[in-house]
């Protein structure tokens, strides 16, 4: 059966085309590359001096900002990262406590939403822990920006030909050289600590244990969105310093695992079901056709039987009535013939006139 072979092939092709790579995404837990690096930010130590911003600007060769980095008045307005700024420090007023500062940048998630959203793999989580970007394949769809729960990736909207997604790289090139990330190196208050993620979690726990009334018992980023390489500890609820506490612990791939897993199922099952429906509707047509034919045959048979009966009845009746009828008919025919003859004569005259 040609149709069946085709459907089989289609199912196989679709399943084949969509499964590789998906298996890895289907709801497993990824705890990060062993020994991968990260940074711990301690909100209680940050003084909002913007030295990290300046260092980031320098090591990443970013254009000079409008206001100099030692101008602290910019802290009065809330800022976000943009295509020329990979990190910003914001000031938050906490009631009864005064100003608290928090640095914001890419959190280098363990299972980054941005990377799982990218349809050309331009964003990848590298074993070092950094989430890095390859501009040479980026199509510029900006789905990474839609996906990132921390609103980190930014875009060069004013670049007509070569716009890039821009975000903190955790200084991946410097890490490769064995150097510290620019911001970490520049921080005068050791608010930033660089190390392997496992170490950082231990350090954070120790600090929380040692100063229980200085810190909340929560390492932000340990579990949020499946865990991040950049983590935070603080004395105030994280939502007060612009970190969302409603993100949950599901990673991005977990969120999309369901729909992705449905793909091979739809591709495999649909053709079979639809083929079945088609077969049923075909069969229905055929049965209906046959039934109609049978019904017609029956009707004809019945009708002809009836017709025969009426005919024979009519014939026997006719026998009696016939004689009289013939007489009448003959009389009628004679009369008609006579009158027709008269008419013919008149007509003949007219038509010969017309002809001439």
């Amino acid at each position: 059966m040609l149709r069946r072979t085709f459907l089989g092939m289609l199912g196989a092709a679709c399943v084949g085309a969509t499964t590789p790579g998906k298996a890895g995404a289907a709801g497993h837990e990824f705890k990060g590359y062993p020994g991968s690096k990260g940074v711990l930010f301690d909100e209680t130590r940050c003084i909002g001096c913007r030295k990290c911003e300046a260092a980031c600007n320098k090591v990443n060769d970013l254009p000079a900002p409008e206001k100099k980095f030692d101008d602290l008045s910019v802290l009065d307005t809330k800022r976000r990262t943009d295509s020329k700024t990979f990190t910003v420090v914001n000031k938050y007023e906490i009631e009864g406590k005064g100003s608290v500062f928090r640095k914001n940048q890419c959190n280098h998630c363990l299972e980054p939403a941005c990377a799982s959203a990218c349809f050309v793999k331009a964003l990848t989580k590298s074993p070092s822990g950094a989430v890095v970007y390859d501009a040479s394949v980026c199509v510029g769809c900006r789905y990474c920006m839609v996906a990132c729960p921390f609103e980190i990736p930014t875009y060069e909207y004013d670049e007509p030909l070569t716009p890039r997604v821009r975000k903190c790289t955790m200084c991946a090139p410097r890490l490769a050289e064995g150097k510290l990330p620019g911001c970490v190196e520049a921080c005068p208050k050791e608010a930033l600590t660089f190390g392997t993620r496992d170490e950082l979690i231990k350090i954070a726990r120790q600090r929380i244990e040692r100063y229980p009334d200085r810190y909340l018992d929560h390492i932000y980023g340990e579990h949020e969105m499946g865990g991040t390489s950049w983590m935070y500890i603080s004395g105030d609820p994280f939502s007060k310093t612009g970190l969302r506490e409603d993100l949950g612990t599901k990673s991005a791939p977990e969120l999309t695992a369901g729909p992705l897993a449905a793909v091979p199922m739809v591709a495999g099952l649909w053709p079979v079901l639809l083929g079945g429906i088609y077969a049923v509707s075909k069969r229905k047509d055929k049965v209906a056709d046959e039934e109609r034919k049978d019904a017609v045959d029956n009707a004809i048979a019945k009708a002809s039987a009836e017709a025969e009966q009426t005919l024979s009845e009519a014939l026997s009746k006719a026998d009696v009535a016939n004689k009289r009828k013939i007489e009448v008919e003959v009389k009628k025919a004679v009369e008609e013939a006579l009158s027709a003859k008269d008419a013919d004569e008149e007509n003949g005259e007219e038509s010969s006139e017309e002809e001439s």
Partner: protein
Amino acid sequence: MATPGNNGPKSVFNTFNLVAGTIIVIGLIITVIRFYKGIGAVTNLDDNNPWGIWIGFDLLCGVALAAGGYTTSAACYIFGLKRYHSAVRPALLTAFLGYALVVVALLYDLGRPWRLPYPIFYQHGTTSLLFEVGLCVCIYLTVLFIEFTPALFEWLGMKKLRNFVVKGTLALTILGVVLSTLHQSSLGALYTIAPSKLHPLWYSPYMPLYFFVSSIVAGLSMVIFESSISHKKLHRMMDEEYLKHHDSVVLGFGKACSLILFGYFFIKTMGVAYGNNWHYLASGYGVVFLIEMLGFVALPCFLYAVGVRDKNIKLIQRAAVLTVIGIVFNRFNVSMIAFNYQLPSSERYFPTMMEIGISVFIVTVGVVLFRFITTRMPIFFEHPDYKGEH
């Protein structure tokens, strides 16, 4: 009624051409600015709002409203409902044009549009739902084109090719349904990755299902809606076969829409219950949600039902318009209105005139092409050489 071939309005300078011409000229000017100065020069997109009306309307609505192609051909060829045959060609043409223009619209929105084939041919981001959307749309566009070619070949008088393609109808139809199921639902699934950005009344793990089910109603309603417009404007191109079946197509589709809308209302309500999001109904977004659900799902569902009961074609057509608006409203809600609801209003997105201009431009191009093709090729009528052959 006109015979095939005798076509088009008499003068080139009728109202339609003048309006369409102006829009197209403006569109071309914006196009130049867009590709000369970058996306930032013509849009209000920013780092918080990477997707605007070009995705929300051109892509999401475009694909949903072009769903008539797969729904109609499935009804006719798979479910064996032969009386919908006359509706298949117009629906397929609309779908093909719709998808082709979705791709054109994407070229405006992408930062590096010439790399559009990258995800398919160069490096596959298989973990991305956008990859699936891209792959399916790409293949489906090809399928739609092939499905449409018989009309083209009939017009060009290429009998052999035409008969060859017609033989593959069933296979193409099934392939079309599979691909449509996948990408229609994936468009909804795109947003499952951002639970923190989409308002809980719209966010649901069932979004793929919502998008798929609503795409069926969108497709059927569009067929009804479009046929009512074409009826007025292109009546001269329709043969008796088409006209004879028109009312029964409308009635049948209306009945289907009523049922599916009912089901859709039900699963959407289940979604709210599942997330236990009832309390949000009392908020501002709750009002928007209720308008969408009551005004554009429950109401057309009811109107369709009444229209079918009373065989009231007019009422069914009204219900179709309401449904189409409702689908657009829903896609706008998901992609723009309820998206980024957590941001302060000063950081929210509203499209520029130029962004809207491009969307209007693309729709206009679609209408112009639709007119051009239907006034020449056998879309609303059967080609005399192939009468009753299907």
